[in-house]
């Protein structure tokens, strides 16, 4: 037995840290405003309090409108993670439906559905989102929908592959022999087996959606102020860069930590659920 370095890398330390980060993020997102020391949208109006570097009173500093950055980051967690969660839900629903239908049939329908998926995957996701954003300013809800609409294709591929694999299994064939209808087959026998894979894909999808939302907000096309999101806090700080480094650093760390945590957990989970699959 050759103990590969890859296996040892993914040792006990990494997932525990990752799960911890996720727990913190979830907690912060849920508690939101209750945790923030100051009102995230309140500006004291005192000119002297603008753009202050981190201090005891304001651990993450203040922004151009004298708002406490720490509070904004905390509340931003709710927005960023909330939008992410909603979009992943939409992506899961759409992707599962699409993939399940495609995987259940061997006819031209399968080919057609999957070509559409290929087509959507050829268009860079960011550009698709930008096209959707061109319709007008988006509320967090609309943003979530837009993100979901662009995130479902990879999910549908995963679902289709699994549905096809499970269709051949003995217990499905047995159910068919007993006269189970196609829908019943799908819902009661096949989909439960696909669940773990969907969960893994959803986790990894989450990891890819958060940076997209943040990126869009950073460009000014996502969540608009005064609502705080990790992306638009960074946007406020980008103009003066080093002079307002705290507005760049802390949201960035929050994003990186959350994304890395989701990735780590998702990858570990994937290794457990699907050991054969090397890379995706």
């Amino acid at each position, binding site marked *: 037995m050759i103990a590969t370095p*890859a296996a040892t890398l993914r040792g006990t330390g990494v997932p525990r840290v990752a799960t911890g980060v996720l727990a913190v993020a979830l907690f912060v997102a849920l508690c939101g405003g209750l945790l923030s020391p100051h009102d995230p949208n309140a500006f004291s109006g005192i000119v002297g309090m603008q753009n202050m570097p981190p201090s005891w009173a304001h651990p993450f500093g203040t922004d151009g409108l004298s708002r406490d950055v720490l509070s904004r980051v905390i509340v931003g967690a709710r927005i960023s993670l909330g939008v992410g969660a909603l979009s992943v839900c939409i992506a899961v629903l759409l992707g599962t439906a699409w993939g399940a239908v495609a995987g259940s049939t061997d006819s031209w329908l399968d080919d057609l559905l999957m*070509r559409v998926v290929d087509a959507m995957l050829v*268009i860079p996701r960011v550009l698709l989102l930008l096209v959707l*954003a061109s*319709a007008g300013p988006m509320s967090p809800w609309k943003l979530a929908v837009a993100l979901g609409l662009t995130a479902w294709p990879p999910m549908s591929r995963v679902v289709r592959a699994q549905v096809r694999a499970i269709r051949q299994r003995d217990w499905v064939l047995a159910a068919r022999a007993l006269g189970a209808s196609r829908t019943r087959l799908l819902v009661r026998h096949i989909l439960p087996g696909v669940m773990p894979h969907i969960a893994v894909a959803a986790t990894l999808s989450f990891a890819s959606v958060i940076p997209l939302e943040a*990126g869009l907000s950073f460009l000014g096309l996502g969540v608009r102020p005064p609502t705080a999101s990790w992306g638009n806090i960074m946007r406020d700080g980008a103009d003066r860069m080093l002079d307002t480094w705290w507005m*760049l650093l802390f949201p960035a760390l929050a*994003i990186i930590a959350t*994304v890395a945590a989701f990735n780590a957990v998702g990858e570990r989970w994937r290794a457990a659920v699907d050991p054969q699959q090397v890379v995706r």
Partner: protein
Amino acid sequence: MFRFLLGRLAQSALVLGLAVSVVFALLRAAPGDPLSGSTLDATTAPATRELLRRQYALNRPLLEQYAHFVGSALRGELGMSLSRGRPVAQVLRDVVPNTVLLMGTGLFLGILGGIALGAWQGSRDTRSSATSARVARMSERIGLAIIATPEYIVATAMLTLFAATWRLFPIGGMVSLGVHDSLGPVARAGDVLWHLTLPALTLALIVGAGVARYQRTEMRLVLARPFIRTARAKGVPEARVLVHHALRNALGPVITLCGLLLPSLVGGAVFVEAIFAWPGMGRTMVEAVTGRDYPLAIGAVIVSSVLVALGGLLADVAAAVADPRLARGRR
């Protein structure tokens, strides 16, 4: 190989056709957008323009609009840019070379670097020296951190460090404004190169981290296979084992994967262009969206998709060259 190429070309064409349709569908879903490749005069008053457009969109049935849309896209008639008053095709023709230059350089450096780094990392095992193993592990962790970092954050960090703080490179743009035109041809090229370095390195860093991760996984898998032992038993020097035997077999899947990564890379390039103010398609796209210039935005999406599809085709060809079994049919 020829048949393989032909098959892939046909597949790409079909997929692109569908992609254009998807864009059309998405736009129809979004409220209030003009999208016909009409020959509106640039001097038409905005109010009149709006009226005409609304008439256009409402009067024709959906299917006719779709046919018109796809037809003009195929012909290369991408309409008139609302914000720039010039045909979209013309605007894009000016900026696409810049994007190709940036993305091409970034991809080239990133893929080569990523493959080399990943192969080296993947070849570290209990036989290698302790220091090299430690360095490899550290580089792996750094790579994972970069992968977890959104592209625009990497770009901002690079810009902040190397341009704003240490002043090694310009803050942005492709040329030094005002000065560029008065320079001789060689100096002009040098100026562009100087501006190109940082954004290209940023892209290379992002791409390289991702490629390295796949390469080292694949490398480790290949090194565990029996034929590696045979090569060593033949007396093949370790360096040749790593390159001719291991890497040669580990390369194919990675190249295919690079092709699959292209769409997200182009997406990341959008951010890099925006932050470095590089006058390419990505930046144009952002400006078009901010300025509600739909024809330009759509045109940019279509052209980007074509580039991505072409890139994917190239990747498949390269993979088939590396592993002949792919060209002759499914592995």
